[in-house]
């Protein structure tokens, strides 16, 4: 804005007529490009943008159905408005306005810059110079534009859309195009926390289980995987590579194969129960309900996750373990430490020091661990106490089911925002703590 107040009349006018300042100072193509952006924007606004923005407040008022037409004197079918499209294109139009303002600022700045150069008696850069700069001093712009557009279209725009949905009543009873939905403020948040007892009960239970799951899944995998890596790294173990490859093979198999398979093996009629019957451990018509009774299913998913996850930790930690300076151990043995003591005093602190960031990302990833829960057992067994949820459901799998199977988009978006707050908050806390640790002391 400093450029605008300091610039001459052409620079000031560049805010209204994009590129004017540039054209006046000889950067004709650049100026025309600015102007083209402005023209396109107004065309877009006239054709669609402005209409959508004006409807954003209500998300549409005309519902599809029969309406009495006074002119003809009969009922006619009224084409309803689609709240969802209004919301989607309304968000898009708002982004377009933001871009427009950005270009307005750029237009003034470009004009002011050229003006300064003229004053100093220099020639403003030509189009060719500017294009050359895109490969040199402005390389970051050319490199970021395409990925940036991709992130905008496939992450930012949809995310905004979904966040806004948490403040509407877009559920299975308000499905466009037949029905309209509208803004309800914080109604959904109220409902999920206390106002709607079934939702609140489901949410609280699933939330508690999500945290329990994340803690167990992260730490069982971490410590057991590390123990396995330590064991294989041991001096007297032969064929180290073979052992590692065996374990790595299980992570190489796509999870939708290995986990679906595990789900079938652990079914009430699955191979594991058949094996137990054959061995005579359980009666012939009996079965262990690995996945069909609530508590047992929760234990089973944690155990199956150990099966899936240990190889990962092993793979990642074995390299780091080999980096621990050997003289640390030697001096410890000379001082009479046993293996458990060296693990506790040397290995563990070193590993924790190095892998804290990994541990944090793992914890967050486990909160959002869709695959293990959904592919193994679809969050089941279903619980009648829950709203569309199951005993092993995490918040994310619940979210998935609510959107894909039940179209309760408002509830799903609310859950999404809550997950975001949890993950964001946790990583902020962890990250700040580990950073302070890192800055204050260096592992020695």
């Amino acid at each position, binding site marked *: 804005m400093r450029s605008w107040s300091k610039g001459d009349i052409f620079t000031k006018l560049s805010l209204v007529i994009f590129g004017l300042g540039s054209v006046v100072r000889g950067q004709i193509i650049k100026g025309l490009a600015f102007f083209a952006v402005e023209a396109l924007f107004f065309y877009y606004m006239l054709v669609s943008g402005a209409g959508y923005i004006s409807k954003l407040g209500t998300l549409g008022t005309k519902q599809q159905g029969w309406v009495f037409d006074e002119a003809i004197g009969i009922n006619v079918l009224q084409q309803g408005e689609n709240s969802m499209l209004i919301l989607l294109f309304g968000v898009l139009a708002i982004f377009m306005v933001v871009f427009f303002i950005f270009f307005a600022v750029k237009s003034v700045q470009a004009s002011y810059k050229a003006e300064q150069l003229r004053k100093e008696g220099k020639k403003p850069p030509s189009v060719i110079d500017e294009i050359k700069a895109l490969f040199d001093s402005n390389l970051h712009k050319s490199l970021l534009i395409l*990925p940036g557009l991709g992130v905008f279209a496939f*992450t930012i725009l949809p995310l905004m859309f979904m966040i806004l949905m948490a403040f509407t009543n877009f559920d299975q009873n308000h499905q466009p195009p037949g029905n309209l939905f509208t803004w309800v403020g914080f109604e959904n948040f109220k409902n999920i926390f206390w106002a709607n007892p079934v939702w609140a009960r489901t949410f609280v239970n699933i939330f508690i289980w999500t945290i329990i799951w994340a803690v167990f899944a992260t730490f069982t995998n971490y410590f057991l995987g590390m123990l396995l890596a330590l064991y294989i790294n041991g001096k007297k173990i032969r064929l180290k590579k073979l052992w590692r490859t065996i374990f790595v093979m299980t992570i190489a198999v796509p999870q939708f194969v290995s986990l679906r398979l595990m789900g*079938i093996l652990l079914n009430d009629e699955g*191979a594991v129960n058949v094996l137990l019957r054959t061995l005579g451990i359980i009666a012939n018509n009996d079965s262990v309900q690995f996945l069909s009774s609530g508590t047992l299913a929760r234990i089973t998913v944690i155990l199956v996750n150990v099966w899936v996850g240990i190889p990962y930790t092993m793979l990642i930690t074995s390299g780091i373990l080999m980096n621990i300076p050997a003289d640390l151990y030697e001096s410890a043995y000379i001082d009479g430490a046993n293996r458990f003591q060296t693990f506790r005093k040397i290995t563990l602190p070193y590993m924790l020091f190095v892998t804290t*960031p990994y541990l944090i990302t793992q914890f967050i990833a486990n909160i959002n661990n869709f695959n293990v829960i959904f*592919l193994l057992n679809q969050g089941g067994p279903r619980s009648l106490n829950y709203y569309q949820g199951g005993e092993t459901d995490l918040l994310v799998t619940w979210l998935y089911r609510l959107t894909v199977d039940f179209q309760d988009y408002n509830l799903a978006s609310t859950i999404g925002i809550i997950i975001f707050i949890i993950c964001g908050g946790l990583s902020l806390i962890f990250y700040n703590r580990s950073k302070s640790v890192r800055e204050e002391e*260096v592992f020695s």
Partner: protein
Amino acid sequence: MKIFKNMLRAIQGFLRHLPLGLLSVIWLVPLAWLVMTSFRAENGAYTTYLFPRGWTMANYTRLFTETGLFNYPRWYANTFIVALCSCIISTLFVLMVAYTFSRLRFKSRTPMMNVVLVLGMFPGFMSMIAVYHVLKAIGMEQSLASLVLVYSGGAGMSYYISKGFFDTVPRSMDEAALLDGATRSQVMWKIVLPMSKPTITYTILTSFMAPWVDFIFASVIMKDRYENYTIAVGLYRMLERENIYEFYTRFCAGAVLIAIPITILFIAMQKYYVGGVTGGAVKG
């Protein structure tokens, strides 16, 4: 005496490896089970006996010949095409973003990196429904091209690992080249990228493998469009209640055919994988 000592040592060695052997069994049995079932002659997911009563290759051949309900070869081709296209786009995006944030300095750099950090904390598929509607609005829903865009469109956000690598390439090299009059883009394409083969390989392999193993995105995008399914969604459909009896053994055969190439790729790239995940951490 000596024989006794040797025997003792052998027994000790055996005992030492025994736990690993037992664990390997636990880890390998499900995979072996998968292969075994893929050769089973009888239908059905659940049997009252452990080992197949008859052996056959038919599960494999029927995957490719009986394509009426489940078109396995078509899915395989779909997945391959999607994987190839999205691999090219993602790799370019990731490298471009990673290089920019690692080597170039500009005003909006830190704010942009923070925005990416925050965006990454939303559950990935929360926006899937919206993406589906965006695609529908531009008339691309349920197509393979839309799947490519979904896999690669936001790829720029996962730049961390490559950035970590670029950070380790000594900066003195590019400064020297810049002094000699090279442009920044020449520095990137001719000096830094040729030195970054490990991270490029890693990025290519991971982005190529993603469509083969992803289930969620493909299932949301494709819904009921059977002919555009990828392997993961297709195989998953085979196990739905109404199909599982008829198709379980074929599912196993299909899974084996997909697991083999993915396993080979994964084992080939595991050293890059480890480096990628821990690279930043080890340096502190």
